[in-house]
Every structure is written in C-alpha cells, then in structure tokens.
C-alpha cells in the first residue's frame, strides 16, 4: 500500500467522525498552545533581561566586596574613596571608573515630594554607563572634589516634583538637606527590576556627608577592550586586597552576570515547558483512547481490508497515520493559539514574550511524536486483528 493512499484513508476516517476528531485534537491543541506560550514568555523575559544588562554599557566590570558564589552572604563594604584612587591608578584613566554609594531618600520641592534612590557618584558616571541627559548638565569633577550640593534628577522624580515646569536651577531637599538641580535624565525604564527613572544623582562627596559615612558600595570600570577585561579585573582585585587584607573582592563582567541569569531563566523556562508538556501528555492519552475506540468500531472494516489483501503493516500504518494526523493538526492549531496568546501577553501585559522558531519546531515535533507514541498501541492492536474474527464481529 502506498503511503499517499494511507494518508487519504486516514483523512477520510477523521472526516467521518468530525466532532470526535476535533474534541480529541483539543487536548493536543491546549497542550501545544501552553508549551508555545510559556516558552515564549520565558524566552521574552530572558531577552529583556539580557538587553537590560547589555544596556548598562559594554565591557563593564563590576567590583564588589565579598565572593560572588551561590549561597554566599552579601559582604558589607569597607571600601572608601581612597580605594577608588588606588583603582584609578591601576586603570590609568579616571573617566573609566564609576563609584556609587546609594540610599533611599525622600526628595522634596516646595510642597511636593518623591521617594527616590539617591546615588552618590563621580562625574564619570554618564561616560561609564549609558546615561543620557534630557536637560541641563551633569556635575563636574570640581563639583565632586568640593562636595557641592547639586543634583541630577531621574525623569520620574523630575515629573513628580516639578510636573511640566523646568527644574533646572531650582532648589530641592534630599533627606532635609538643600540641593540645586543641574540636570535631568532621559527616561530609561527598568533594568533588572530597578526603576532607573526614580534615581537622583549627586556628587559622592555630598552624599557621604549627608549619610555621615565615608564608605562606597561598589565600583564599576569600563575596560578599554574585551580582551583585557579579565586581566584588568584581576589587577583591580589585587590592588584592593592589598589595601584590605581581610576582605575578598570580586570582579564580574556582564558576560558572567548574563551567564548566571541565563542559566536561571533557562531552568525556569524548562520547568514551565515541562508543566505545559504534562497537559500535552494528557492530550496524547486522549488520542490513544479514541484510537482504541476507533479500532473497535472499525473491526469489521479491518477484517474486510485484510480479506482483500491488507497486510498487518498496512492496517497498522493506517491507524498510526490517523493518530499522527490528529496530533499534528492539533499541534499546528495549538501553535497558532500559543502564538496568539504570547502576542497578546506581550502587547497587553508588562510580561514580555518572544516566539522563537526553535520553540515552534519543537512543539510541532513533540506533537507528531505524541501521535506516534500514543498511536502505536492502537495501531498494533488493529494490525494484529485476526481477519476471521474481525469479519465475524458485529
């Protein structure tokens, strides 16, 4: 029997029981749709986080106290601005080194107030990270060295405090201390779960005086090129350890952060897909069940086909194709439904979703495989039917 013939017979059989075929497919449709949509959400989230990490700027090296290991507790920083000078000597270029000391503070302008993340930083921040100003100017090296109380506002803070008015040159208070606004940032949105638009940047010296501390929380270095980033990290860590013999320091690159985040999100996506896969499995059991019913119903037909020359193989292939047809049609419909769901989620909710070709190919392959796996038993049963017994069945 030709395979094209077997397809024709399978299609006819499915058509003859249209409603039943559709209901059977529904299980597979839902399973595949769930896999496609959930994998799309996982992939979209991963892509978004990656683009956020990359959006920080290229060739970045983040230096923090303590060891970066799974399960290690965060270490309180003992670094000061003197350490920054030592690091700057290692790097050889002050404009490549950024420093931060951060604190949540209430910022007021007249009767309005906003809760903001105050970042004490060097004047180098806009060149080390990607931060573009909307209006005004950033502060200067001399602002930092003299500890002037000037501030650059994130777009959300600026809007909350001043609405549509121009904030440049106006007075605000941070933690009760008066500052003058010199600039505002362009909107940046979230990165890694932090709202970058509610930051307020001030010179680190002013921030330290406000907080009554001389610590810094961490520093970041923009390496001149990708090749030397590792060696530079080692040199910086060595310089810091020399000054703080009791403390460990770690230098991590964007690639390393991406790697860790990617692994976590990969596992998460896998778990989501596996959960969705269970519903696909249930759909497969439904297909198996209906195929067994179909074999029983068509026992006489099977007997007749065998009497006129169908081999066990011919009958088996016919029923297997029927099962595969059910699950692959269900798979294609499920892909359509999953893609639609993913696009809707992406459009209508803050959760990102990205449909990828490999996920679709996988979903299609899995649904075909489900048809084969769950069609084999009914197909074998049909193929092995004794023609004499089958013809006698009423």
């Amino acid at each position: 029997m030709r395979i094209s013939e077997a397809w024709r017979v399978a299609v006819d059989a499915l058509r003859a029981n249209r409603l039943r075929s559709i209901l059977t497919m529904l299980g597979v449709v839902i399973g595949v749709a769930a896999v496609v949509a959930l994998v799309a959400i996982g992939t979209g989230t991963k892509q978004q986080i990656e683009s956020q990490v990359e959006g920080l700027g290229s060739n970045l090296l983040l230096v923090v106290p303590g060891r970066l290991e799974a399960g290690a507790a965060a270490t309180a920083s003992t670094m000061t601005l003197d350490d920054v000078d030592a690091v700057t000597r290692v790097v050889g270029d002050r404009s490549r080194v950024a420093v931060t000391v951060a604190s949540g503070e209430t910022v007021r302008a007249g009767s309005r107030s906003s809760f903001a993340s105050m970042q004490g930083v060097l004047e180098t921040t806009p060149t080390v990270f990607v931060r573009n100003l909307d209006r005004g100017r950033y502060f200067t090296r001399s602002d930092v060295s003299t500890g002037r109380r000037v501030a650059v506002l994130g777009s959300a803070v600026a809007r909350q405090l001043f609405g549509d008015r121009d904030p440049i040159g106006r007075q605000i208070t941070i933690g009760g201390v008066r500052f003058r606004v010199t600039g505002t940032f362009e909107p940046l949105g979230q990165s890694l779960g932090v709202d970058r638009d509610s930051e307020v940047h001030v010179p680190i010296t002013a921030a330290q005086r406000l907080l009554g501390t001389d610590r810094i929380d961490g520093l970041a270095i923009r390496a001149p090129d990708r090749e030397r980033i590792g060696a530079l990290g080692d040199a910086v860590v060595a310089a810091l350890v020399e000054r703080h013999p009791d403390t460990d320091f770690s230098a991590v690159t964007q690639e390393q952060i991406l790697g860790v985040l990617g692994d976590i999100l990969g596992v998460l996506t896998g778990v989501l897909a596996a959960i969705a896969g269970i519903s696909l499995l249930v759909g497969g059991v439904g297909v198996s069940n209906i195929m067994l019913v179909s074999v029983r119903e068509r026992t006489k037909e099977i007997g007749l086909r065998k009497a006129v020359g169908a081999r066990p193989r011919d009958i088996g292939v016919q029923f297997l194709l029927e099962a595969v047809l059910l699950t692959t049609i269900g798979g294609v419909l499920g892909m359509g439904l999953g893609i639609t769901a993913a696009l809707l989620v992406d459009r209508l909710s803050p959760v990102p979703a990205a449909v990828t070709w490999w996920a679709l190919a996988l979903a299609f392959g899995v649904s075909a495989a489900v048809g084969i796996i769950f069609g084999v038993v009914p197909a074998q049963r049909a193929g092995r039917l004794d023609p004499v017994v089958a013809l006698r069945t009423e």
Partner: protein
Amino acid sequence: MTGSPAIVATDVARTYELDGVSVTALKAVSLTVEADDYLAIVGTSGSGKSTLMHLLGALDRPTSGTLLIGGRDVTTLDPGEMAKLRNETIGFVFQSFHLLARTTAQDNVALPLVYRGVPRRERRERAAAMLERVGLAHRAGHRPNQMTGGEQQRVAIARALVTGPSVLLADEPTGNLDSATGQAVLALLESLNSEGVAVVLVTHDKDVAARAHRQIRMRDGEIVPA
C-alpha cells in the same frame, strides 16, 4: 480447462481454543479444488463449512495438515505473506456483502488494488470496467446504502474479481437475497466460472447446490458422502 489444481488440502484440521476448551471445527479434511472447478459445499449449521472456506482462502491457518494455495504452502507463510497470497489469488464474496459504508461502489471495487500498489487512476479504470462487467456501471458513484441487496452483492463480486483471482470463494452469497436476485448473482458466478475462475460456494439451498458441477457435504467437521 485443466492444469495444476488451484487448492490442495490434505488432512487439514482446525481446532479452536476457547477458555481452555478446545473445539474441533474441522477434522482431517482432504479436498482438491481444480483450476476450473465449480464446487458447492453443503451441510448443516455448525458443520464447519465456513471454517473450511476460511482455510481455502488463506484467511486462516490449519491447526494441522498441509494446505497448498496456488502451489504455495500456507503453513509456512507469515500473516503479511498470507495477505499477499489472498490479494493475488483469492476473491471473497460474503453473505453480508461487507462493503465499506462510506465509500462509493467504484472505490469499494478498487479496494483490493490499493493493497497491490496500483496507482489511483488505473484502479479507478479497472474498477469501472469490473462494475460494467457485473452490470452496475450506472451505480459507480453510489454508496452501499443507496443500492439494493442484489446490487451490493454484485459490487462485492466485482471487488472479488478486480484483482483477476484464480479462485472465487463465496460463503452463502445468495443467503441474504430473494430467489430472483439470487439467480442473477449465481448466473454471474457461473459465467465467471466458464471464463476459467474456480468457484467454491457454500449454500443451504438444494437448488443452488444442484447447479454446481460437483457437491461435497459436511457433517461434524468432516466431508461425508453426498
């Protein structure tokens, strides 16, 4: 027409095992079907006629004895090879027609050719020619439920013939038909026999049996003198 016999059964027996009890449906039957035979098998209900027909048609395998169909020893064949042998040498006609309900007369007739790998267009041509042969060309596009019993049986005969078999096995082919329609079906079988197809039919009807060239009578799984 003479030549090597179509089927040679020697001491074939068939025993069914049912829940540990064995029922012997056929006890050591020997029978030769000649290439141009027209043979009627008669006997009481349960005497083993259908069982014998299934064996002669390679639908079933004897429990013991040897069975040559078209010169091939059935006991050495696997189910796939038996299917091929049926397709090539045997045509079956059943009492209850056994047509596929959702399929047109033409496609029902063409069905055996599907399993022979004949291309669709040629299948349809041959099926149409065979329907013409049984006088049903005008029914080609009809489904079984749009036809009378006699027409359905003629479609079934066309299906049995479409592969050009050497033996036609008909188990009570007129059992579900009124006598006039039965006569027409028998006339058709006889004209085929005159063209060189061996015909073996089972019947409960004396008159039908009398038309055959020879009769064998069965009782309790054995061939008894007529």
